[in-house]
C-alpha cells in the first residue's frame, strides 16, 4: 500500500518589537519573572489594550515579502479560555479577518522548487509561562512573556513529506530573519512550529483526518515527529482503524507523539470582536512605507549573488544560515568600500569571500550569531585577507595561515602578516638574485632541465620557494626561472 503524507505548518513568530503588542512593557528575553509585566499584562481591573503600531508594520512587511494580501481592515477578536498564564481569561488574536491573507513560500525540493501556499498570517499576543518546578507542589506564573507580539503564519496542507515540512520551516525561518521581523531564536521560543499531519492513500484527493503535533522546537525534532506520526497513522489505517482528530505532543526523548487532548475535549473559545480595540485599518501609505523599509529579501539576494558569480550551492548555504550570510554581507561591504581595487576585481573578491565563508570559515565558526554580536571587526579582517590575496600581497597558502592566526586572536590581519612574515615577495630584483643563487647551487638540475626533463624545473621552483620560506609569488618565480634558463 502506498501512502501520501500531507502536512501543514502553523508557525508562531515573535515579532521584533521593543515593547509588547498591547502595552508599553519590554519584550526582552530572560528578565527576572514578572519584572516586564505592566498593569495591562497582568490584567488589572480597568486597564485597556493599545495596539503597538510597530507590530502592525512588521506584519505588513511579512505579508509583502510572501506576496500575500494585506487586509485594509482587520479585526482583533477575543479567544476566551481560563488558564493562569492567560491573565485576562482571553487571548487577543485575529480570527475572521486576519491582517495577511494568502501568499506563498518557495522551497527547494531536491533540484527543483515547490511553491507552498500560505493560508493567512495574523497578529496575536503570547501567553505568560507557568512554572511547575521549584514551588513545592504549587505553580509559579511568570507574565513577562504575556502580551509579546506574535505573527501566526499558517500554511496550506501543501507539504508531502517530513523533509518538505522541514525545508518549508527552514525557508520561512530564514525569511523572517532576513526581513528582520523575528530573531528566529528557537531555544527562546521566538519561532515555534506546530505540524498538522495526515495521511491518505496515493491517488486520494480528499484529506485524511489530521493530528496537530506540538512541541517541535527544532528542525530535527520536526522531521522525526512527522515521520513518527505519519507512520503511526498508516499503521492504524492499515490495521483497519480510524484516526481520531487530536492534538499530540512530541516527546524527543522517546521519539514518539502522545495524545494531549482529543476533539471531544476541544474548548469552545467563544471568539468575538474585542470591543476594546477598533478595527485595524491599513492605509496605502502604511503599505508603501513597509515596502520602502523592507530589508532585501532572500529572493533578491539570491539574484544578486548569482550575478557576482557565486555558485548556486554557496548562495543557498549563505541564505539558509542567516548569521553566516550576514557575516558574508559585512565582508562584501568591506570589499566594496576598499578603495584600492577596481570594481570588476571587487566582484571576484566578493565571490571568493563567499566561498571562503561557506568552506573555510564555517568549519571553524559554529556560532555565527555570537561572532556577529561579540566580534564586529572580524568580517573586516577576513575581507582584508581576501583583498590581499587578490592584490598579490599574500599567497593563498599564507591567507589560510593568516585566517587561523586572526581567529586564534593573535592580532589583526596586518599584525599577523607582519609578525609571521607572510607578505609575498614580489620585488623582481630581489627574486632575480635569489634565482641566480639557486641556479648556481643546483648545476645538475639545470643541466637535467636543459636535457628536457620537466621535473627538474619543478624542483628548481621548489628550491626558490624554500629559500623565500613560501613567500615568493609562484607565478613570478616561474617567469624569472624560464627567462634565466632560456627555455
Amino acid at each position, binding site marked *: 500500500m502506498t501512502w501520501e503524507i500531507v502536512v501543514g505548518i502553523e508557525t508562531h513568530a515573535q515579532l521584533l518589537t521593543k515593547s509588547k503588542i498591547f502595552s508599553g512593557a519590554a519584550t526582552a528575553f530572560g528578565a527576572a519573572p514578572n519584572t516586564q509585566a505592566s*498593569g495591562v499584562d*497582568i*490584567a*488589572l*481591573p*480597568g*486597564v*485597556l*489594550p*493599545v*495596539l503597538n503600531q510597530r507590530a502592525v508594520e512588521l506584519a505588513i512587511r511579512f505579508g509583502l515579502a510572501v506576496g500575500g494580501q494585506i487586509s485594509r481592515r482587520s479585526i482583533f477578536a*477575543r479567544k*476566551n479560555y*481560563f488558564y*493562569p498564564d492567560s*491573565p*485576562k*481569561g*482571553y487571548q487577543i488574536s485575529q480570527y475572521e479577518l486576519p491582517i495577511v491573507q494568502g501568499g506563498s513560500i518557495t522551497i527547494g525540493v531536491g533540484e527543483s522548487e515547490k511553491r507552498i501556499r500560505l493560508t493567512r498570517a495574523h497578529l496575536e499576543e503570547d501567553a505568560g509561562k507557568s512554572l511547575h518546578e521549584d514551588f513545592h507542589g504549587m505553580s509559579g*506564573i511568570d507574565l513577562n512573556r504575556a502580551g509579546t507580539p506574535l505573527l501566526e503564519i499558517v500554511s496550506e496542507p501543501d507539504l508531502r513529506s517530513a523533509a518538505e515540512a522541514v525545508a518549508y520551516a527552514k525557508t520561512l525561518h530564514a525569511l523572517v530573519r532576513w526581513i528582520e521581523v523575528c530573531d528566529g531564536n528557537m531555544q527562546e521560543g521566538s519561532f515555534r512550529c506546530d505540524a498538522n499531519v495526515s495521511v491518505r492513500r496515493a491517488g486520494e484527493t480528499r484529506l485524511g483526518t489530521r493530528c496537530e503535533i506540538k512541541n517541535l522546537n527544532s528542525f530535527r525534532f520536526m522531521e522525526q515527529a512527522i515521520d513518527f506520526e505519519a507512520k503511526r497513522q498508516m499503521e492504524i489505517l492499515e490495521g483497519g482503524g480510524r484516526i481520531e482528530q487530536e492534538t499530540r505532543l512530541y516527546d524527543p526523548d522517546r521519539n514518539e507523539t502522545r495524545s494531549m487532548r482529543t476533539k471531544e475535549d476541544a474548548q*469552545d473559545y*467563544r*471568539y*468575538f470582536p*474585542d*470591543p*476594546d*480595540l*477598533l478595527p485595524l485599518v491599513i492605509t496605502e501609505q502604511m503599505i508603501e512605507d513597509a515596502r520602502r523599509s523592507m530589508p532585501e529579501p532572500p529572493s533578491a539576494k539570491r539574484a544578486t549573488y548569482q550575478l557576482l558569480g557565486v555558485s548556486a550551492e554557496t548562495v543557498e548555504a549563505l541564505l539558509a544560515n542567516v548569521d553566516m550570510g550576514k557575516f558574508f554581507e559585512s565582508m562584501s561591504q568591506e570589499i566594496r568600500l576598499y578603495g584600492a581595487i577596481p570594481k570588476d576585481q571587487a566582484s571576484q573578491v566578493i565571490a571568493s569571500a563567499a566561498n571562503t565563508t561557506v568552506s573555510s570559515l564555517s568549519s571553524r565558526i559554529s556560532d555565527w550569531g555570537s561572532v556577529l554580536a561579540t566580534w564586529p571587526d572580524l568580517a573586516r579582517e577576513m575581507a582584508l585577507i581576501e583583498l590581499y590575496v587578490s592584490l598579490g600581497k599574500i599567497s593563498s597558502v599564507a591567507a589560510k595561515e593568516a585566517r587561523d592566526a586572526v581567529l586564534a586572536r593573535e592580532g589583526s590581519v596586518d599584525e599577523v602578516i607582519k609578525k609571521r612574515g607572510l607578505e609575498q615577495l614580489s620585488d623582481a630584483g630581489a627574486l632575480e638574485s635569489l634565482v641566480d643563487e639557486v641556479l648556481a647551487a643546483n648545476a645538475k638540475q639545470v643541466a637535467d632541465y636543459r636535457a628536457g626533463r620537466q621535473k627538474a624545473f619543478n624542483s628548481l621552483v621548489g628550491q626558490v620557494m624554500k629559500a623565500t620560506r613560501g613567500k615568493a609569488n609562484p607565478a613570478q618565480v616561474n617567469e624569472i626561472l624560464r627567462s634565466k634558463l632560456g627555455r
Partner: protein
Amino acid sequence: MLNATLAELASALAAKRISGVELTKLFLARIAALNGTLNAFITVDEERSLADARAADALRARGEGGALTGIPIAHKDIYCTRGIRTTCGSRMLANFVSPYDAHVIERFAAARAVLLGKTNMDEFAMGSSNETSYFAPVRNPWDLQRVPGGSSGGSAAAVAARMTPAATGTDTGGSIRQPAALAGISGLKPTYGAVSRYGMVAFASSLDQGGPLAKSAADLALLMNAMAGHDTRDSTSVERPAEDYTRSLGHSLAGLRIGLPREYFAAGVEPDVLARVRETVAWFESQGARPVEIGLRNTRLAVPVYYVLALAEASSNLSRFDGVRYGHRTSDPYDLLDLYRRTRAEGFGAEVKRRILLGTYVLSHGYYDAYYLQAQKVRRLIAQDFAQAYRECDVIMGPTAPGTAFPIGAKSADPVQMYLGDIFTVPASLAGLPALSVPCGFDSRGLPVGLQITGNHFAEATLLGVAHRYQQAHDWHLRVPKETPL
C-alpha cells in the same frame, strides 16, 4: 453650603467665605450622619479627603486653581483609585487596592478637586436598583424603603441627600440616568468615547461610559469640562479638540425641535410619569420649542439586544477575576479548576453569575450567529432609527424610566421585569448617543420623576443648555429629599 451649586461653591471658595478644608469637613460630617441610613458610600477616607482639601486651599491661597479646586467629589467605586480600595460593589474586589488611578480620577486630581469617597453601586454595575451590591443596598433619600436606582445608586443617593456636591458614575444601559431620575437629581451619559474608560472596571466595553451626577445641568457641564477629553490609553476614546460644555448654557429654546418618540409615550409607563413628562414638554413648547412626533420603531428590541451584547462582553470582561493575581481567592483549593470554581462562586453575587452565564451562552458555538451576531445587526438598526430621527429634530425627550422608585425587593425575584425598566435608557447606549436625565416633578407618592433628553453624537453642550433653561424656570432639582433634611 450643602445645597449650593458647584459655581456657588467655587465663588465661596474664591472669596474665602469658606475653605476647602471646612467644606470637606461639612460634607464628611453629613456623610457620617446619613451614611448609616442610606449606605451610599462604601469607602470614606477622611485623611485623604482633608489632605486633598489642604492642597487645594494652598493652591487657592496662591491665587491659582480652577472651577473645581477644593470642591469635594464622590466617585463611583468602579473607578480605580490608587491607595483607596476599589470594590466595584463586589466581594471579588472587597480588598482590592489599585496601584493606579483611572483617567477620570486623574482629571479630577489635576483640577484639584477633593476625593470625598467611593460610592456604593450594583455589583460590577450590574443592576438597576443598587440591590446587587455586596455592601448591601442603598436607600432612596425620598423614601427609605425604596431603591435609588442603579447601578450608580450610591452616587445618586449621595448627591440627592447632599452628602456630596457632585459625583461620578458610569452608564452602560442607563446606570447614570435611571438613578438620577429615581433620586431626583441630574445625570449625564456622554457620547461613547467622550470620557476615557481607562481605569473604569469594565462591564460591557462597547457601551460603558463615564459621566457626572449633580444637582443641576450647569453643574454637570462643569464636571464634564474636567472629565471629558482624549486619552491615548483608551483606543475607543475619540480624538477631538477639548470643548467647553458650559458654552450653550444661556441659549434660547426658540425653534428647538423636540422629538417625541411614539414608542416612549405608550402603555407600560406609569400615568404620573407620563403626565409630568407631557407637562414638561408643554413648558418647552411655551418657550418657543416645537414638538415633533417621531418613530424609533426598534425600541422594543433594544432591551433584548442590550442584554445579549452587554452580557456577552461582560462574560469575557469578568474572566480576569480568577483568584490568581488579585482580589478574592478561595481557601485551600485542591487543584486549578477548584480554585477557579470556588473563587468565582464565592466572589460573585447571584446577578453577576446570571449575567456571566447568559453572556457565555450567547457567545457559544452554535448560538453565536443567532444571538450575538443578530443582536449586532439590530444594534445598527437602532442607531439608524436615531440617525433618521435627528433629521427631523434636535433633541429627543421622554421619560427616563417607565416608573418612579420602587420598593426594595419588589423586582428582585423577577430579573426580566427589572431589565424592562431599562427600556428608555438602553437605546441611546446602543447608539452611543449622549443623554441626560433631569428631575421634572413628582408622582402622587412624592417620588421624583426624570425627564430624559437625548442628543446626537457629541451634542452634550446642547443637551445641557436645554436642561439648564428648564432648571432656571423650575426648582425640582433644588428640592431636598424629605428623609434627609438639611
